[in-house]
């Protein structure tokens, strides 16, 4: 058992850096995809969807990746705090913005895809 644990530790030490960097890149790409969505989607609500979901998911993946490459436990603890706070504040502010927009009477665009080509940022 001890041998097994030791070998697991060895494997972990081996894959730690590549795995962490890979997760970082994956998270960053997720964020990038979300930002593309923010540019390309046709109206506020779809943009909100793109921004908030990829924000939370991408940030989580990135922070896990950073935790893998971090040198000390303190850094991991700080990353956990960042994740916790982002996880609380990000959806909250998305909710606040969506609520404000909805109450202000901003209507979502509905209809078929062909109808959505009117103004800026449409599907084009």
């Amino acid at each position, binding site marked *: 058992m001890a041998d097994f644990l030791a070998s697991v530790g060895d494997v972990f030490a081996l894959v730690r850096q590549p795995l962490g960097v890979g997760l970082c890149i994956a998270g960053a790409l997720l964020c990038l995809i979300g930002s593309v969505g923010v540019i390309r989607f046709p109206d506020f609500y779809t943009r909100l969807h793109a921004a908030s979901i990829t924000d939370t998911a991408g940030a989580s993946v990135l922070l896990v990746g950073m935790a893998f490459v971090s040198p000390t436990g303190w850094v991991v603890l700080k990353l956990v705090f960042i994740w916790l*706070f982002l996880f*609380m*504040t990000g959806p*909250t502010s998305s*909710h*606040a913005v969506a*609520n404000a927009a*909805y*109450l202000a*009477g901003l209507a979502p665009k509905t209809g078929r895809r062909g109808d959505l080509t009117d103004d800026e940022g449409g599907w084009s």
Partner: protein
Amino acid sequence: MSDPVAIEIAVFNVILLAMLFVVGAAVARLRSLFAIVMLTGAYSLLSAMWFVTLDAVDVAFTEAAVGAGVSTVLMLGAMLLTSRTAKADRRWARIGPLAVVLVTGSVLIYATTDMPAFGDPFSPANSYVGADYLVMTAADIDIPNIVTAVLSSYRGFDTLGETGVVFMAGIAVALLLGFGERSLSANRARGETAPVRTETKADKSDHHVVLRVVSRILIPVIGIYALYVHFHGELSAGGGFQAGVIISVAVVLYSLVFGIAAALDAVPVAFARGLAAFGVILYAGVGFYALTQGYNFLDYDAILSHGADAAGHHGDTNTHGQHIGIILIELGVLFAVAGSITTIYYAFAGRAPEIRDEDW
């Protein structure tokens, strides 16, 4: 520049400067004051990142605390009391300023030919006193964060002046706009019906349970984090200025979510302005204490003398006096900044908005 990371950081630096430039140009063109405030927020985020790439971690910390919380809220508060859009400017009126700006800019750019190269360790700015601080801090003060050491010990007198300026600005704002009490009592006197709103269908979803719950969790955390920033300021980035701003951000958040009356119950105006005054007095008091002990103003060795010899040379490595002094004056800065900025916020938020509908 041979280091690949250094090159990447340099490229990042250029990109950030370009983005700052774009944001600045957009601010110049826009007329909606609200969009301008939003862009100022983006500007602050960008400049915080830029500060980090140029190693100014403490500066980035301060910019983060100020830009993310305080300055946006203050500008919005001022806009509530004034107007929301700028008047369209006349096109010909742009020519004069543009000419002045172009001439000034070209003169300044001409002057850069004499400037030291970027990152030159031998430039005049980097040569004398800054380099000395780097080398001497370990022996003199014995704390890792050299910025804190310079801020509160080597240049303590300078910082006292800055703290005084923050305090005076807070008092001046309060004198101009009131402490927030007057308009509140006016609101109360106006009766319980002050904000008459017609209920609409949308009001059914006008609940903010999520915001309230999350804020209730986060506000204490922000306060604790401010204390961490304060007391950890000698070991890593942070210090009294940042912590003071963060504490006032917590008050601002509380007031935004639970209403200014609740915030005034929790942190009364008198407490905030008393705290500001007490901070400045504490700071100056440490200096005068040193004077009474026969040392120079703000020489913290007075607090716990470590036996200067006849020539006044402090050869001993006992730096506890410095440590205690730094903690005391950083506390003074914390109180002064937190109290002043909270007072400023109350002054803006407490004044009854009388914005006209055509300005809205």
